[in-house]
């Protein structure tokens, strides 16, 4: 990863973190942010993978970690309008932040029941192939989606037809309250797929540069027409599944604190400083600017109206 690339990774990760921190402050202050899922601590994986794509590629995002969306160029104001279910975002308040729809940014949307992203991704990848494009489809997935059968069917098809599909497994230790190790043999989400004879890489999901490099290799493999590839990033969900879940029933407080010491932002910041690529002062200035951007976007979203009759009519017209 060169200097520009590394600084871009840091800036995009900090953008995601700034957003998560701000929303958590608003929640603590009593504001509502329906369906908010903090991606704190997982930014290296979400951002590192998303930035390995080019503008023409497509990305199927997960509910956790808005760095995926921001790295594709989704404006903060659109994201927050979606989060607050207001008009003027990407879905006019009908899909919340769970169904962000920005096809011009390579973001087709997200399935509502975990698991069909893989087969939808295979179809998107086939469409790119038929159109003669070199685009690839990157599909993030967590423990829940990866436990479901469509993953097998999609991967089998992608191998048979050499589809340009890249899967990024976000192994963050949990599916809601269940441990990854209780859901997958030996706690690994991708090892079984080595049986397909495709590239399966396992990386430190808290090291953005390592993630970026591995996903870039996987994307290159798919783009060359050699079929699917998988990267599994090992990380940890520092946040609860949703704000206010019964965290004490499934983990000890020291566990998340221990992982906070491996914070991906702090790690990258230290390396960038060592290399003389980004000083502490520059980081602080970046943080101030992002904070101001997020605050401005929040004010914009809060002021935006929720959907009304005209938006509903437009939706119904789509279905007729």
């Amino acid at each position, binding site marked *: 990863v060169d200097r520009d690339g590394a600084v871009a990774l840091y800036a995009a990760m900090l953008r995601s973190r700034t957003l998560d921190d701000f929303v958590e402050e608003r929640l603590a202050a009593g504001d509502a942010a329906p369906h908010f899922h903090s991606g704190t601590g997982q930014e290296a994986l979400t951002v590192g993978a998303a930035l390995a794509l080019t503008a023409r590629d497509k990305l199927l995002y997960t509910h956790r970690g808005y760095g995926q969306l921001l790295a594709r160029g989704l404006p903060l104001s659109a994201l927050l309008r979606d989060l607050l279910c207001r008009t003027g975002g*990407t*879905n*006019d308040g*009908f*899909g919340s932040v*769970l*169904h962000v*729809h920005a*096809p011009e940014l390579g973001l*087709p*949307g997200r*399935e*509502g*029941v975990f*698991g*069909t992203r*893989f*087969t*939808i*991704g*295979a*179809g*998107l*990848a*086939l*469409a*790119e192939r*038929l*159109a003669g494009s070199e685009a690839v489809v990157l599909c993030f997935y967590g423990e829940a989606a990866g436990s479901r*059968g*469509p993953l097998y*069917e*999609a991967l*089998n*098809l992608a191998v*048979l*037809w050499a589809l340009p599909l890249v899967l990024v497994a976000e192994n963050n230790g949990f599916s809601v309250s269940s441990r990854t190790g209780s859901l997958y043999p030996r706690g690994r989400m991708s090892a079984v797929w080595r049986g397909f004879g495709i590239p399966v890489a396992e990386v430190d999901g808290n090291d953005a540069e390592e993630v970026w490099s591995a996903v870039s290799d996987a994307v290159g493999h798919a783009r060359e027409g050699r079929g699917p590839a998988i990267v599994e990033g090992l990380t940890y969900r520092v946040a609860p599944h949703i704000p206010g879940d019964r965290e004490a029933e499934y983990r000890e407080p020291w566990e998340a604190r221990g992982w906070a010491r491996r914070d991906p932002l702090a790690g990258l910041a230290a390396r960038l400083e060592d290399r003389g690529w980004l000083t502490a002062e520059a980081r602080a200035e970046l943080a101030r600017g992002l904070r101001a951007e997020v605050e401005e976007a929040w004010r914009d979203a809060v002021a935006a109206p929720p959907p009304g009759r005209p938006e509903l009519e*437009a*939706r119904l017209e*789509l*279905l*007729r």
Partner: protein
Amino acid sequence: MNTRSALNAVLRSELARDPRLVLLGENLHTGGSNNSLVCGGLLEAFGPRRVFETPVSENAIVGGALGLALSGTPVVAEIYSADFLFTAGNEIVNDIPKWRFQHGGPARLPLVLRAANGAGAGGAGPEHSQCMERYLHGVPGLAVVTPGGAADAAGLLRTAIRSGRPSVFLEHRRVYDLEEAVPDDPDFAIPFGQAARVRDGEDLLIVAWGGMRALALDAAEALEAAGIDCGVLDLRTVAPLDVDGLLEAAEGARAVLIAEEGPRTGGVGAEIAATLAEQLGTTRPIARVAAADVPHPYDPVLEARLLPDVARIVARAQLLCRPEAATTHR
């Protein structure tokens, strides 16, 4: 031309017309599902970049079809038997019909799921014989197409392919071999949500769709011989339901009989009866002929006793129109 050939001809002409249209399905190099055999010769004619033979993977077929359609690639996917639609039930009930409502796009979702539906010659057992429209007609955002003859099948399939709205296209097994003239206009299409008055009559209206259309027409003939003037309305698409057409036809008759092949409880017929009662009041007698609420037996003799046939439609119609004369009937 029979319905099977008519459907094949539409797929052929639409594949030739739209170079982006693709087919997905199992066993396509030998004509696709043995329950349908609609896709004969299409792989040979259009090649493997248009006609994709898949593994037995309904999640991948239906989810993949959604991914293609989201990219603007029109797709017709064949499911081996309509009973198997439930193997991709989440995609069919959740992903496909709700996608555009939640996301606000794309403007078109050109996706057709074709499947052989209903009981054919009999004896296929409880998971290869069902009429699946009863499970899908109340899902907002999904069209459910139930042609009863070759011309309707051709015209409705063309609409399904070109309309840009997702549909489940249910081809009744007994309808495949029905012969009928089919317009050779390459743009011949029948809009969704337009029921057809396939026979006029004032004493009784039989409401039917799919495989029941032919039985309803045969029953109407028999009833005419018995002095009952019987009309038949073919819904053609159970979703969208042609409510105006249904009410208009019902208003022209003294009684309404709904003929459904599937089980009585919670069927399409229940929705039709409720609509009639709500909109027209209860002064006009309404009745249903439907299957008993049990799974299809493999044994063809037992199965025949389960399913509504011409004799049962006639008997129920006589009871409905002339209760005083029909007391000897069960």
